[in-house]
């Protein structure tokens, strides 16, 4: 053991001019350059940046887990004053898990699915501290209680798949904390979780940071989460820290154009598609081996000045004496109060006639019990109630957002609309025709092309085997009625132009495109047949913030130009607030609330909407949120709770009526409907969840 002092008072971790490179067949790739960090005891530092900026590489370097082709090429990592480069493999093994612990993004991948959790948890003290079995068990149970898991004894006796994703992540955090590490690395610990579950984990992390003697490094791409958990923040761009400082300083007094760009690209509650449109950062992240000279952000920066910004390496410059620093040579000259040159204000859109009307639509999937026992008893079948009595309508040029967590039935709804499934009951009237029982193969060509979809996953949305041109061309031939090769090609190039892609993308294959570019082609594909309605299933959730802003903007532009109805499926309420005209909130197949965006985001609320709003991380220090953490996990759709589907997790449950009777759809006026037993007056008296601090005072 390298003899780390348990009573060390200096900085727990220091990175001095750390540089990390990867060696590949093609070239040496400098992943991280000149990284400095001082982590004091009990402090939490956030590392934020877009994918490919080197956040995770830093964490791996701290753990000395860089694989065969990675190496520290310069600088030092000092843990409690000891240079980690001097440690042997055996000493590193002692260090990892004992002194430094790590929590990864995907909880299921961190737990061994073939082992019960008690063995996995007890292993930590058994291996690192050689305690007795009984003591290891007691400590594990205690730690599970500390991470707020209900019924720790039951969790101990479970296999990982028997508990929910949020509970799994709590177990992983408990496991990391069991050896009382002095440093905890959290690499996007909530990215794989639903937003209400994420809120619980974030609260736990923030609480642990306050009570434990553990310093933390929190890696995230979400500025809102950093605000909720961290003391200090390092903003990374292309392998460098471009701005560092206390969270409040960086959020309120940002002094680097990239940080400013990031904040301009995320939808804050103050953002509005007509008043303050999102601003994407133009251009793309430079490749690690093709970074520009001088400031790496230079080519994308509005304040770029040739001769100064590209003169040579730029070092961190102190902004004040609190440790706020920026890697920008012009920070004293830029007018930081003014946001970058944005788009002009957009006019409000007038909505036209109703395009889609969904009325009491139900979709049940039958689960046939094919076991021998069931055959003897006379076959019973159960139903998965994926959609229960869904009613809403969407008008021309309107954006209707469908909001809900995974498993709420959003995707089933989309499938029924598109004709990939047929409804069990009710009607789906699209342009005057009931399509609820018409599968897509039986729909007329006009109906098919009028209702198209933009998909979620940019890596999956385009067929990797065909060129962009041939994929778009196929859609045009299918829908446009154009068969002449030259005309089709011309139309493809027109489409590429509409989604702002250069024409030489025609012969590119999807793997030669970035995530945002693929998503643009996906949008072009959906709009190729001039549809009257487009269903967009989380089209930007897998993209980096600055790219997401550009793709969102593009989608809205095209929608506005062609007066398309947009059905926007999302779990991101900030984004929904930004672009939706009306919102439909779903929970476990039920529509729990619907209304205009203003109606949804202010009282009266359905308790679930209230909890969802509270769970959204907001990267704005002037916003105060009510804290509502939902208990428990999403019930199974095969066996949904009786009465109100939400009563098992509801923080406003009023009594037995909730668990015995299906609540009425209360009309709160002007089309605002809430599915709840709580009297309307009581709901109207609720406090708003999101409040501007200044207004509240």
């Amino acid at each position, binding site marked *: 053991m390298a003899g780390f002092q348990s009573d060390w008072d200096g900085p727990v971790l220091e990175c001095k001019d750390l540089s990390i490179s990867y060696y590949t*067949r093609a070239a040496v790739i400098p992943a991280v350059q000149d990284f400095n960090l001082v982590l004091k005891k009990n402090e939490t530092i956030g590392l934020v940046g877009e994918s490919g900026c080197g956040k995770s590489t830093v964490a791996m370097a701290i753990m000395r887990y860089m694989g065969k082709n990675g190496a520290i090429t310069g600088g030092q990592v000092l843990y409690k004053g000891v240079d980690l480069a001097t440690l042997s493999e055996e000493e590193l093994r002692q260090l990892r898990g004992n002194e430094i612990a790590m929590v990864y993004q995907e909880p299921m991948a961190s737990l061994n699915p073939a082992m019960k959790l008690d063995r996995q948890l007890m292993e930590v003290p058994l291996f690192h501290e050689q305690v007795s079995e009984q003591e290891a068990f007691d400590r594990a149970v205690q730690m599970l209680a500390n991470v707020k898991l209900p019924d720790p004894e039951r969790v101990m006796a479970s296999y990982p798949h028997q508990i929910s994703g949020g509970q799994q992540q709590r177990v992983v955090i408990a496991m990391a904390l069991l050896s009382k590490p002095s440093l905890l690395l959290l690499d996007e610990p909530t990215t794989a979780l639903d937003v209400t579950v994420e809120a619980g984990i974030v609260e736990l992390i923030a609480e642990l940071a306050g009570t434990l003697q553990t310093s933390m490094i929190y890696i995230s791409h979400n500025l809102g989460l950093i605000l909720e958990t961290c003391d200090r923040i390092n903003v990374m761009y292309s392998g460098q820290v471009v701005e560092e400082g206390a969270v409040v300083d960086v959020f309120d007094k940002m002094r680097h154009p990239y940080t400013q760009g990031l904040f301009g690209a995320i939808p804050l509650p103050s953002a509005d598609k007509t008043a303050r449109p999102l601003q994407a950062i133009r251009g793309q992240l430079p490749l690690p081996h093709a970074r520009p000279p001088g400031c790496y952000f230079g080519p994308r920066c509005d304040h770029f000045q040739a001769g100064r910004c590209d003169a040579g390496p730029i070092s961190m410059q102190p902004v004040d004496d609190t440790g706020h620093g920026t890697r920008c040579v012009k920070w004293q000259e830029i007018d930081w109060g003014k946001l970058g040159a944005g788009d002009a204000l957009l006019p409000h859109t007038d909505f036209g006639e109703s395009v889609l009307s969904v009325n009491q639509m139900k979709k049940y999937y039958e689960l046939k019990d094919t076991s021998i026992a069931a055959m003897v008893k006379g076959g019973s079948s159960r139903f998965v109630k994926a959609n229960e009595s869904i009613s809403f309508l969407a008008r021309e040029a309107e954006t209707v957002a469908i909001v809900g967590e995974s498993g709420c039935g959003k995707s089933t709804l989309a499938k029924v609309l*598109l*004709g*990939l499934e047929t409804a069990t009951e009710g009607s789906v009237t699209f342009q005057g025709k009931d399509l609820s029982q018409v599968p*897509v*193969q039986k*729909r007329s*060509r006009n109906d*098919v*092309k009028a*209702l*198209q*979809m933009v*998909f*979620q*996953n940019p890596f*999956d*949305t*385009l*067929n*990797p*085997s*065909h060129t962009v041109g041939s994929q778009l061309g196929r*859609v045009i031939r*299918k*829908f446009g009625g154009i068969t002449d090769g030259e005309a089709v*090609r*011309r139309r493809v*190039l*027109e489409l590429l*132009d509409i989604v702002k892609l250069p*024409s*030489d993308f*025609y*012969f590119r294959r999807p793997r030669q495109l970035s995530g945002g570019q693929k998503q643009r082609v*996906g949008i072009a*594909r959906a709009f190729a047949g001039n549809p009257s309605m487009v269903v967009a299933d989380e089209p930007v959730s897998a993209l980096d913030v600055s790219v997401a802003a550009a793709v969102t903007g593009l989608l809205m532009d095209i929608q506005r130009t062609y007066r398309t109805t947009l059905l926007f499926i999302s779990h991101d309420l900030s984004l929904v607030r930004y672009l939706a005209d009306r919102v439909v909130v779903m929970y476990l197949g039920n529509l729990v609330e619907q209304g205009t965006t203003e109606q949804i985001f202010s009282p009266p609320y359905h308790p679930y909407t209230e909890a969802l709003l509270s769970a959204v991380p907001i990267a704005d220090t002037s916003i105060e949120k009510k804290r509502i953490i939902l208990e428990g996990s999403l019930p199974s759709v095969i066996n949904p709770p009786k009465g109100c589907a939400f009563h098992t997790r509801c923080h406003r449950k009023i009594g037995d009526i909730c668990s015995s009777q299906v609540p009425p759809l209360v009309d709160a006026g002007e089309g605002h409907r809430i599915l709840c037993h709580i009297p309307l007056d009581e709901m109207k008296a609720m406090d708003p969840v999101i409040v501007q601090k200044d207004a509240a005072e």
Partner: protein
Amino acid sequence: MSDSAIQIPKRPNILVRILRPLLLIRESWVGMVGLALVFFWVVMALFAPWLAPFPPNALLMPNQPPGTEWIANATHMIGTIPASEYCAAIEGDTSKVNCGTFWLGTDLTGRDVWSRLIWGARQVLIYAPLATFMAYIVGIPMGLWAGYSRGRVDAIFSFISNVILSFPVLVLYVLVIALVGASAVNIVAAVVFASAPGIFRIVRGLAMDLRSREYVFAAETRGEPLSYILFLEILPNARGPLIVDAMLRLGYVIITIGTLGFLGLGLPPPDPDWGKMIAEGRNLLQVFPWTPLFSCLAISSAVLGFNLLADGLREISLRD
């Protein structure tokens, strides 16, 4: 946007697009060894008439001491040892004298082993790829359909393929060939019958994975016909594993054809067939071991070549 602003970019030359991925095999030395072995036999098969020193089926007789008469009924050059130099009369016809080296000796009826191996390569490299190709033609559509549609189609096809797979392959071959007789067509048919279920399973697995991709979903929402989704959306993305599998399977089919030849179920005599050559040499193995030995080497080098090539292809496909 004006038309003049639209510039239609040039598509890369078709040769470049096909050859560039193939050149990647250079980066795998295992693949290069495999490619060399395969290439060797392909060249032998292609140029057999020029490369074979003697006609494959000619019964060669030794030249008598110089100046004497040819003896019409002289024994054939049975089991001549390798690398011996002779002038030989073909089929006892003294007007056709052919001098050369029997690099691999002669077999029990006095035919040059090396020439027969070269001509045998021709047979193997025609029928093995043909049979493999036909097996894919049968297995791919079934696998795609079953893996994509699941349900009843899948249940029926899977059941049939399981029944065939559960039957001992060798017995199956013997039965098929014995029932319909040995001929080139029947060999191909037997191989297809026995290999298609395995291909079906692989393709079905790949299709089951690919059917949930969003681009397939997108094609469904456009109302594309089943055949388009199967052959243009799913199949091209399954090609990587299928090419590797085809190379491996080609090797096994060579063994199969060899086995059939060995059992006397191969191509009708007297055409040279590697498997049959082993069978013929088996009787006097202790006296003249080289005849069957070199045939075995030929089979194993060809099979090894295809296996290593498959390994190499897998290796480069896993990189990046």
